[in-house]
């Protein structure tokens, strides 16, 4: 009996050590980026052996990104092209997801396949034709174009996620509303949508994060500095032969801020949204 207890205790300690080690591994790259960004002199940044803690923490890298570079502008652009799809892709996703979940119709199977296949098409095969099409329509170098493309990018995921959330809502509550004389549209907005709020939150956050992170379309369709998003701005820095790592680190850290804020407040919804589709099957 005693032996079993000590065995259990050892197991628990080992588990704790493993989890702690893992946490260090996960967080280290971020901490390292932060530390690098706070080092004021080139000598300190490129020292070998490495000096881990900045001798005199300085914000010079941040200020040079913000004032010498155009990073503040990039941040605003990134926000615009991320919030728009978080609203529209999810709105369209609610409409379609609801119908797919609630109604029987002939094209349902093919329709789901339609959304699934979009996820398998590599972006790159569409880039060249898109470029031609958009330049014909005079849509190159416009933030609204990125908003549209990112909305398009996030529609399939939103539809599928919201459909699985609607599947979890019993039809009976809508039927009750219909009996009370509610129209279909009204029942959707007044009864069903409030119930799937967690799904809407999850889909919006996904749309925001994915648009915030998108690089290749932004490089392809934006080459005017005032419309660049953060990834495009950082891409220009990393393509240089001589990367200035202090500034690069500062830019990286700043680009992580919205993601961190979302994580701090809405992580529960993200995990729910991610696991909803597949765990429920």
């Amino acid at each position: 009996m005693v032996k079993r207890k000590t065995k259990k205790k050892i197991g628990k300690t080992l588990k704790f050590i493993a989890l702690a080690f893992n946490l260090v591994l996960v967080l280290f790259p971020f901490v390292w980026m932060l530390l690098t960004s706070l080092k004021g002199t080139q000598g300190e940044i490129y020292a070998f052996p490495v000096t881990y803690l900045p001798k005199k923490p300085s914000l010079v890298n941040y200020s040079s990104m913000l004032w010498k570079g155009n990073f503040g502008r990039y941040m605003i652009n990134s926000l615009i092209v991320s919030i728009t799809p978080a609203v529209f892709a999810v709105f369209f996703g609610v409409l379609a997801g609801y119908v797919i979940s609630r109604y029987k119709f002939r094209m349902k199977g093919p329709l789901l396949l339609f959304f699934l296949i979009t996820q398998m098409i590599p972006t790159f095969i569409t880039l060249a034709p898109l470029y031609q099409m958009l330049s014909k329509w005079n849509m190159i170098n416009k933030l609204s174009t990125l908003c549209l493309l990112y909305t398009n990018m996030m529609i399939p995921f939103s539809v599928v996620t919201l459909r699985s959330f609607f599947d979890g809502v019993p039809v009976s509550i809508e039927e009750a509303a219909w009996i009370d004389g509610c129209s279909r549209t009204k029942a959707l907005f007044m009864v069903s949508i409030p119930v799937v709020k967690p799904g809407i939150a999850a889909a919006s956050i996904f749309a925001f994060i994915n648009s915030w992170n998108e690089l290749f379309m932004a490089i392809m369709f934006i080459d005017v500095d005032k419309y660049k998003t953060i990834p495009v701005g950082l891409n220009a820095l990393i393509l240089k032969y001589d990367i200035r790592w202090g500034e690069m680190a500062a830019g990286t850290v700043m680009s992580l801020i919205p993601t961190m804020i979302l994580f701090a407040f809405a992580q529960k919804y993200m995990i729910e949204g991610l696991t909803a589709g597949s765990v429920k099957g």
Partner: protein
Amino acid sequence: MKSKLRLKQRKNLFIFFMLLPAVVIPLIFTYYPMIVGSKMAFQSYNLMNIKNIKWIGLGNFAKLFERSTSNSFYTTMWNTVKWVGISLFFQFTVGFALALLLKKKFKGSAVYQGLIFFPWAVSGFIIGIMWRWMFNGTSGVINDILVRFHLIEQPIGWLSEKSTSLLSAIIANIWYGIPFFTIMITAALRGVPEELYEACDVDGANSLKKFIYVTVPSIRSVLVLTVMMRIIWIFNFPDLIYSMTQGGPAGSSNIITSYMMQLVQSLDYGLASAVGLLVILFLIIFTVLYLTATRFANSED
């Protein structure tokens, strides 16, 4: 009778308009460009030579598979196999192991999960930048740690050596992909009914047996799905390589999709589209085979 018909029409109209935006937008901005792109795969289509676009049948594919020493496409394909295989294996096993440790909730486990889940929300491009700095050949922190522990004597040019650049990218990719599996499998494990384990206790089964006979079968569908999603995803994921090595040195760390991105950037749209078509073809075949194989196993038990 008439009103019933009208009711049905109204229902159909409702369905139609609700689906409209979610269908039309991808049709215009994903499907149409894809079809045009597929057409380009059979054309000599280079923006450097825009006056001279013509059909060349399978010419682009022949060029890709050409047997010559300057052709790096074979290396690229072999790299893709390593990239997907090695990354997936370690992401899955480590992710699974962590999920087993996290299955039982403990004080602070929600916060812990949140922290280790964070990398998942960061773009592959940013992750690549971070690891590029850590793998830096002259002042990288990884070299520093290895030197301090006397595992190496001199700093290694991880990303500038042909022999280590792909490996470095794979290490970063493993690190990046573990949280996904951890989160998905933890959620699945917590859904396994406790009674199943209790029944095993009665039978006196040990932990290994419980794992094989209860845990794995209960979460089988999640495992099958997450692995499939992940394979497609890793395959289609050039972002990390793009920012970490740019496919270099000399194309030695390219995978098929980063290779394609380079072709797009060099404006050879015809050749790039040919690669893209191969990717789509491969992913569709893979998905069908994978789903058939796993469903087959499903009906057996």
